[in-house]
């Protein structure tokens, strides 16, 4: 499958990885967990650059900001005591929902973002957390909103950029709740639809802010600004949840494929959004 590969590199620093990437002039492929690259079987690849030894496996907190290195695996996120606490375990539960135990000990957060799959399970939670992507390319290192990074990957513009880490602020925990929901055919299948949601309420049960992001319902994982806006400032009740879920199902534009029809995905989007928001309310200590 990869007979055309001339060399396999294992750089031990980001600098070295970038140098190799530059030298290959577009003929190299970055390898992290390999769970996307290997089944992809791209025969045009001439150089493989394994970045898992470049010092990018970490979960750190500096000030109020969390940083997750690109080669941190799903298993490491799932097992991290800090990630199990953060936003009610939002990221840990999404990581735990990715494939099998075997897949999770290989698959990385960076590969999950850089793969360009609309169904990537860590994308909705990270979008809901307003995450940024730190990129090292031919130019200097820069940060961009994760949503912009995902859009650039989708447009094929990130081929020679190295995703270094993901950064996001610790969300306020007071009267707040978060939830990740995934719907697939089996326990280890990729998502037909996935949803991450978060809410914060004031003392009277009014929504201070809502965050809703969905995957597998458009070419890109997406935030749902219309549904978020319609909830903001209003008292949380079942009617409001239903309204938000309805707005989401109006916004999404899923494809129909071998796994599910477009209509089915749209209906699942409504149902999963409702469930996620209901859970958020419960975790915020609010009874509907």
């Amino acid at each position, binding site marked *: 499958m*990869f*007979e055309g590969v001339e060399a396999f590199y294992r750089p031990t620093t980001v600098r070295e990885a970038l140098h190799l990437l530059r030298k290959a002039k577009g003929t190299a492929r970055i*390898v992290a967990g*390999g769970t996307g690259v*290997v089944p992809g079987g791209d025969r045009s690849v001439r150089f*493989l650059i394994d970045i898992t030894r470049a010092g990018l496996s970490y979960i750190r907190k500096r000030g109020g900001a969390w940083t997750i290195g690109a080669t941190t695996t799903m298993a490491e996120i799932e097992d991290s005591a800090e990630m199990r606490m953060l936003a009610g375990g939002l990221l840990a539960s999404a990581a735990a929902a990715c494939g*099998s135990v075997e*897949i999770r000990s290989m698959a990385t957060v960076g590969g999950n973002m850089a793969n360009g799959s609309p169904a990537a399970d860590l994308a909705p939670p990270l979008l809901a957390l307003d995450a940024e992507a730190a990129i090292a390319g031919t130019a200097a290192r820069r940060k961009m909103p994760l949503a912009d990074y995902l859009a650039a990957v989708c447009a094929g513009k990130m081929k020679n950029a190295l995703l270094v880490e993901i950064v996001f602020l610790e969300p306020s925990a007071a009267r707040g709740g978060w939830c990740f929901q995934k719907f697939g055919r089996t326990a280890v299948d990729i998502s037909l639809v996935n949803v991450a949601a978060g809410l914060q309420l004031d003392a009277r049960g009014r929504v201070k802010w809502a965050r809703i992001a969905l995957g597998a319902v458009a070419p890109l994982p997406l935030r749902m600004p219309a549904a978020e806006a319609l909830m903001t400032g209003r008292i949380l009740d079942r009617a409001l949840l239903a309204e938000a879920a309805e707005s989401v199902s109006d916004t999404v534009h899923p494809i129909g494929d071998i796994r599910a029809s477009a209509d089915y995905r749209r209906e699942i989007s409504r149902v999963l959004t409702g469930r996620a928001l209901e859970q958020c309310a419960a975790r915020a200590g609010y009874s509907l």
Partner: protein
Amino acid sequence: MKHMELRLTVNGVAKHWTIAPGDILLDVLRREGYFGVKRGCETGECGACTVLVNGKPINSCLMFAAQAEGAEILTIEGLAKPETLDPLQEAFLDRGAVQCGFCSGGMILAAKALLAHHPHPSEAEVREALSGHLCRCTGYRKPVEAVLAASTKKRPARAKAAEVSR
């Protein structure tokens, strides 16, 4: 085709192989005679190719061999002692959890990794650990029973069987 050197440990024995840079670990292990590592789907779906890399279960069909530089690999061939089977292997035999055996090596290694971290897992944890393994013969009930039996070795076999609800 270009070649490169690969140094690693397989089943406790240091190895030095020549590989192609694009070689997949599954192919290299089988080429070197580890036929207990099975070629099933080659897409990460079936778990038949599972080996432990530094104690972690991975699908060898999804890993480049060159990624295993310096790693310690355990294949099913390395589990038994010369004279005695691993308790998990015994349990799989006792419970009739093996028919054709194609899935068994992968399942047993996944279970081995589970028990190393959770010596007394719940049935749900065992099912989760085996969720990446497809069996076309016995199904899943007997392997799950076998892993639970191996994890509670000291208790009588009959009492354990009754605990398994499904």
